């Protein structure tokens, strides 16, 4: 911050700027993808791997394409559960982080438990939330997704809210600013990059939570149920196509949060690299 830097014009972001990369920057990743899929396909042909062990990428793609209506409907159903859990879990986590950052005594009393709870394999509670909310409802999956999203968002947001430089707080004190002003104008803006780190982790976790929850029983419209039932009836290529759809929704969700982050944190130097 104190190192003098050359004065540059203010960067103005178009969509390309927003995505932050030019197409050519994606080239190495695209090469890896093509090589992986090609290698996969070739290995199956070369070693005669049986379809139930590992289907060919081309047959997964074919199945996906022919069943796309059903698969995407199921994916959308499960994504709604994930989204609901994400919203509730992250929302509660942000509120909790604000409370814990404001009243540090409460924070000191509760944080050890929050950290310990973070170590619990929460996904193991999926059958239990199914019992609480009936497995056929979306509510049971929303509940497990919410619990799973809660901790990463809480821990990251709290760290952000409390990593304000002391000199910034002193400046606010010189203006006789109250706690509300300090949170609004210093702590929350400082916490935003940390919050987004937590949200990105949570976005992926929410989709995992919803699908695993469905493995323990759920509506026939759900993607997790679809994957499980196809695998049980030896329709492995269908199951793989289901997993592909789960990936698509998970990655899509992650990318959406990433774009939101770029919009919200456009001021950041790293966003302009």
């Amino acid at each position, binding site marked *: 911050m*104190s190192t*003098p830097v050359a*004065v540059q014009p*203010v960067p103005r972001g178009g969509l390309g700027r927003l995505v932050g990369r030019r197409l050519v920057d994606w080239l190495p990743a695209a090469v890896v993808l093509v090589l992986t899929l090609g290698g996969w396909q070739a290995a199956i042909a070369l070693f005669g791997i049986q379809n139930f062990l590992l289907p060919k990428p081309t047959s997964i793609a074919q199945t996906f394409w022919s069943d796309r209506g059903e698969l995407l409907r199921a994916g959308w159903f499960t994504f709604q559960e994930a989204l609901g859990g994400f919203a509730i879990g992250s929302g509660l986590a942000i509120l909790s982080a604000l409370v814990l950052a404001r009243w540090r005594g409460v924070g000191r009393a509760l944080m050890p438990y929050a950290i310990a709870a973070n170590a619990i394999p929460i996904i193991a509670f999926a059958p239990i939330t199914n019992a609480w909310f009936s497995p056929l409802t979306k509510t049971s999956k929303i509940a497990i997704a919410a619990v799973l999203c809660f901790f990463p968002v809480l821990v990251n947001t709290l760290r952000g809210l409390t990593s304000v430089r002391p*000199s910034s707080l002193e400046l606010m004190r*010189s*203006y006789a600013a109250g706690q509300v002003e300090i949170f609004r104008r*210093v702590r929350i803006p400082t916490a935003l990059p940390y919050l987004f780190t937590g949200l990105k982790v949570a976005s992926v976790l929410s989709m995992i939570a919803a699908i695993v929850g469905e493995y323990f029983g759920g509506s026939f419209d759900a993607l997790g149920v679809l994957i499980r039932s196809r695998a049980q009836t030896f329709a492995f290529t269908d199951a793989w196509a289901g997993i592909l759809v789960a990936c698509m929704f998970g990655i899509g969700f992650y990318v959406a949060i990433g774009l939101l982050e770029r919009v919200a944190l456009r001021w950041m130097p790293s966003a302009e690299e």
Partner: protein
Amino acid sequence: MTVVSLRGISKTFGDGGTTALQEIELEIETAEFVSLIGPSGCGKSTLLRIMGDLTEPSAGNVIVNAKPARQARIDRDYGIVFQDAVLFDWRTVAKNIALPLELSGWDRRRRSERIKEMVRLVELSGFEDHHPWQLSGGMQQRVAIARALAFDPSLLLMDEPFGALDEMTRERLNLELLEIWRRSGSTIVFVTHSIAEAVFLSTRVVVMSPRPGRISDLIEVDLPQPRTALTREQPRFFELVTQVREALHLGSELEGGAPAPRGSEASV
């Protein structure tokens, strides 16, 4: 009118630990430019922070604008500039300057008029929409000064504001600061390590000595106003620099230790 009045200020850190300040008595009048100078550990920054009610004195009375320092802080009677500019990276230059105005509840139109005025004052026109990390250290410090002056405080507290800058930038900002001081008519209390800077800027230099921190000398600077780059070449300027330097060394000797080597802490 007396802007700052310090009566019997003492400050100890820890339980009966080091005495940072002992029995400080000081009065600062309207439109004075007072520098606090002394070696590290003489408590000059602590004294400044006590004036701003950012640190509580262990004993004594601080009156700012005829009220207790705490009330003066709540009434936003002073602006402060730290060694580090303390700008918010997520705010543009204009928005950083606007911060105290937002907190004081100024409406948008009044704010933007004021920002324009302040940006012109610190000569940052054209940089309103830049973020702090796009500016040099000197420019960042000018933003901090503009922010401190934005709501027209009667008192400006500056804690080694140019300490981290190179000599050239520092000398230019010294001239700019004097110009701002003349135009705004505010009272300035300025903490520095540099004897030349203290003499060049001030109407009065408060020389402090360490362990325990106390005022060892008050030196009136009678150099004519307005001061220019040529002021630094006048014989009277050198006389005053020598006077301050000797006062600093005398203060260190009073401590009982060996005299500080020339230029060890405070340097020209």
